[in-house]
């Protein structure tokens, strides 16, 4: 099996990415200093990560990437970010009860702790938001480590590679190929002639919305509407709202905060699922580009319809467990708030909760499941199949039906007035099918794994929701995997499978699978 790919060049570029990624740990280091917590965890983590990065960097002094190397680099960069991101969890939790801390008690406990830390870290960088932490609180874990958890989501949101393209000229050379593999959605949209400028524009918009979100939340706190939303929480939630992450340093997620906070977060979650390129057009004074965008209109329409339906269901009474969020029967504001929040959160794959939707009735859960399958927009930070793909798939299906009735009819598929290329349609249909096949196969594997430690038997819905929630980078599933549940009780094998699902889900499957296929077939 000969696989012709320049591993040295790829490894060297990977080293550059890892080196710069290690520098982001300075943020939690500062948090540790501010809160007077253990600074050694992050200091040591930076040294380890930067050491690995610099060592890899030396493999090739003048790396030159082709298309295959670009594919490999993007795939490995995300895996490397997850691995590097796990180091602080292991170090910080060493010698404590933490489920993600390094344990040397027995070989089995050692493996378990590594898999757990990797799961948590992957869930972070891929903006999934599924957790294996036994107990979520800043008392149990340090403020610094909880902030690291939020920060990994923020970095993963707009994309690690896009960030590197924006700031590192040596990566920008092959920027377009790299961005194609990383950016969510069927194709790359160049906004400016220089790909580095495009990457910078996207990150600036992303950064701007993050600041706006954190400032709004902190503003509510200062105005007295949100006593719990201190500066730490405001920044932490800014970091995980815009990337559609879903981690929260609070065990009760957003239900912990006041209704005002929940209302403020809703528009930011919706924004996070919109193609950021559209905001670029709006900032340049071309607002009609957004208003006329077919995907945006469909996305907004789908959200409105789903909220309305869910509102009706909740208003009629669907809450079995009112302990978190409260009962909704006959409560207009609360029903609307929970409906809007959960649709906004689950459709674009954030995973925040302001009520325990795992305990809602079957009608309400079916709506949420449907929303999870839709996904955000192309070019957003959201996961899932994405609105634009569904639009193309629907239109392709309609065309098939038309041409069956009128075999001689020549009918191109149009989207917003533009004809969609036949190759693009094929790619989108294949992606959508592949997504569903992977979801089903992984769901079966999870169900067949006998080594679960859950208090109750895993139901089929729960097992398949785990598959969907990790592949779609959503986070919470249903039942015992609900927003306040934990993935901790899965076996190591299941967790590793989910790490894989999160990884390929973030990269939209094709780059990673293309590598595997190329590897297996000897190119």
């Amino acid at each position: 099996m000969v696989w012709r790919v320049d591993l040295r060049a790829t490894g060297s570029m990977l080293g550059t990415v890892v080196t710069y990624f290690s520098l982001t740990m300075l943020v939690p280091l500062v948090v540790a200093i501010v809160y007077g917590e253990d600074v050694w965890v992050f200091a040591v983590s930076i040294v380890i990560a930067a050491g690995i990065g610099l060592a890899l960097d030396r493999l090739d002094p003048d790396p030159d990437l082709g298309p295959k190397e670009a594919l490999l680099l993007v795939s490995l960069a995300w895996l490397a970010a997850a691995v590097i991101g796990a180091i602080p969890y292991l170090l910080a939790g060493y010698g404590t009860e933490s489920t993600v801390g390094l344990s040397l008690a027995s070989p089995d406990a050692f493996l378990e702790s590594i898999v757990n830390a990797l799961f948590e870290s992957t869930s972070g960088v891929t903006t999934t938001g599924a957790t294996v932490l036994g107990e979520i609180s800043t008392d149990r874990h340090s403020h610094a480590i909880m902030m690291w958890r939020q920060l990994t989501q923020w970095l993963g949101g707009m994309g690690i590679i896009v960030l590197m393209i924006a700031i590192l000229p040596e990566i920008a050379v092959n920027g377009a190929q790299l961005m194609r593999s990383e950016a969510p959605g069927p194709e790359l949209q160049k906004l400016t002639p220089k790909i580095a400028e495009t990457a910078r524009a996207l990150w600036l918009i992303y950064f701007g919305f993050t600041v706006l979100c954190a400032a709004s939340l902190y503003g509510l706190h200062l105005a007295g509407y949100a006593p719990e939303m201190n500066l730490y929480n405001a920044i932490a939630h800014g970091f995980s709202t815009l990337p559609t992450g879903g981690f929260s340093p609070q065990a009760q997620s957003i239900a912990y905060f006041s209704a005002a906070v929940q209302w403020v977060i809703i528009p930011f979650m919706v924004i996070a699922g919109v193609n950021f390129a559209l905001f670029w057009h709006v900032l340049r004074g071309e607002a009609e580009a957004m208003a006329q965008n077919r995907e945006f209109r469909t996305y907004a329409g789908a959200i409105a319809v789903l909220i309305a339906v869910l509102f009706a269901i909740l208003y009629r009474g669907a809450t079995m467990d009112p302990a978190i969020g409260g009962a909704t029967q006959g409560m207009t504001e609360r029903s609307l708030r929970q409906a809007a929040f959960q649709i906004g959160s689950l459709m674009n794959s954030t995973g925040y909760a302001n009520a325990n939707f795992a305990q809602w009735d079957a009608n309400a859960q079916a709506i949420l499941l449907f929303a999870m399958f839709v996904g955000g927009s192309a070019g957003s930070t959201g996961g899932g199949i994405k609105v634009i793909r569904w639009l193309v798939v629907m239109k392709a299906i309609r065309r098939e039906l038309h041409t069956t009735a009128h075999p001689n009819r020549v009918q191109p598929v149009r989207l917003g007035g533009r004809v969609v290329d036949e190759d693009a349609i094929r790619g989108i249909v294949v992606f959508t099918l592949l997504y569903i096949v992977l979801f089903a196969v992984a769901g079966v594997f999870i169900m067949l794994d006998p080594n679960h430690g859950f208090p109750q038997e895993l139901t089929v819905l729960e097992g398949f929701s785990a598959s969907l929630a990790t592949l779609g980078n959503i986070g919470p599933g249903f039942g015992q995997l609900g927003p306040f549940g934990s993935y901790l009780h899965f076996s190591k094998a299941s967790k590793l499978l989910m790490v894989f699902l999160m990884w390929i889900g973030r990269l939209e499957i094709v780059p990673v699978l293309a590598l595997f296929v190329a590897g297996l077939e000897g190119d």
Partner: protein
Amino acid sequence: MVLVRVVIVGAGEVGRSIASNLEGTHDVVVIDTDAAVIDDLTYSMDVLPLHGDGTDVEVLREAGIEEADMLLACTDVDETNIVACGAAKTVADVFTVARVKRRGLLDTWEHAEGAFGVDFMVCTDLLTAEAIFRISGLPRALDVDQFADGLVRMAEFELGPESPIGGKTVAEADQFDSMTFAAVFRDEDLIVPRGDTRLEPGDRVVVIGSEDSIREFADEITAGQTQDADDVVILGGSELGFQIAKVFEDRGYRPRLIEVDHDRARELAERLPNTTVMESDVTDTEFLVREHVDKSDVVVAALGTDEQNLLASLLAERIGTPRTLAVVETVDYADLFEAVGIDAAINPREEVAEEIVRFTRAGQTEKVSILEHDRGEVLEIEIGEESVLANRTIVEAAAELPDCVVIGAISREGELVVPRGATTIVPGDHVVVFADSSVVDEVSDQI
């Protein structure tokens, strides 16, 4: 830093070649009607590709023509290019460059500059004809170009098997005061010559220096074979063939032109008073020998297609013509032509791309010459205060420049200064530099 924005209409060989030359230093937008080409460009170049018709004002607007400094219309269709320039002028104050094939359009434009909304017009046929004239002048030269108002010349020579400098080192071969060895191309490799680099037969050497020294060098390497190319035979009376004949005529030569079509031959004979037009099939060996084409100095193949040119020039080579040149439309074939024994293959698209790049970069880089089908470039640059070369000796500055850069000549106040290690370069000098294509952008930034 705000980069100069350039809109290129047409992503054919010319458009792509220009785009790849400018992508590092300019904001480049490329418009083409072929969606597949646009898709490919998205990933292969750092430019903004746009699918659409470059003559459509809406498409031009989308390309940001209002903020653009330059529009380069270089599709294969003359009319499209001119209309694109005109359309751009209606919505923006942009400098427009049009590529045309037909000399007639250039003449019309030259009568009234700014006609058609075109600010600069590049005529493919004329450029190619001039390139052929330059190259034919020096025996064995593959490429010739002038810099610093003709003070400095660059030439690329192939060393024949009997060449007296084959086997010598550069230090031994370099007997000429005002000439520098800039580069050696050996098979696929580019070698930066040092004093101890040994030259081999078959190498292509790039030299930069004064006209006289290059002519002496040419005499030396061909050991007495030199004579002026008096007797020129042009095969094929295409529009390009006509232009080549005209260029030679204009410079006092009396070329011969062979055209198979009776009416066309007659028309050419009327339009070319100083050219001997002959009506014959160029593949008729008997005719060629009878007319002593084998005894002529240079044969230029300018027939309709690459295949015809290949056959005709091989035939000329076979009957013993000392020097054959061929026009090649497909860039990729140029190497092949030279590999099978044709002395130089001239690609009209490469010439026109070179001219447009040269023009676009004017100001910072004054002149560009592209060598070996874009493996190396020779640039003329005026030294500013911030240049890495300013007020330093060449040895000092070389440490900061990439390896594959050679300073070939310096022109200071109209005088040629031959660069040696201890030469100090001052602001205001024009330097002629050879650089590997991969580092050209970096080098032109540093200098």
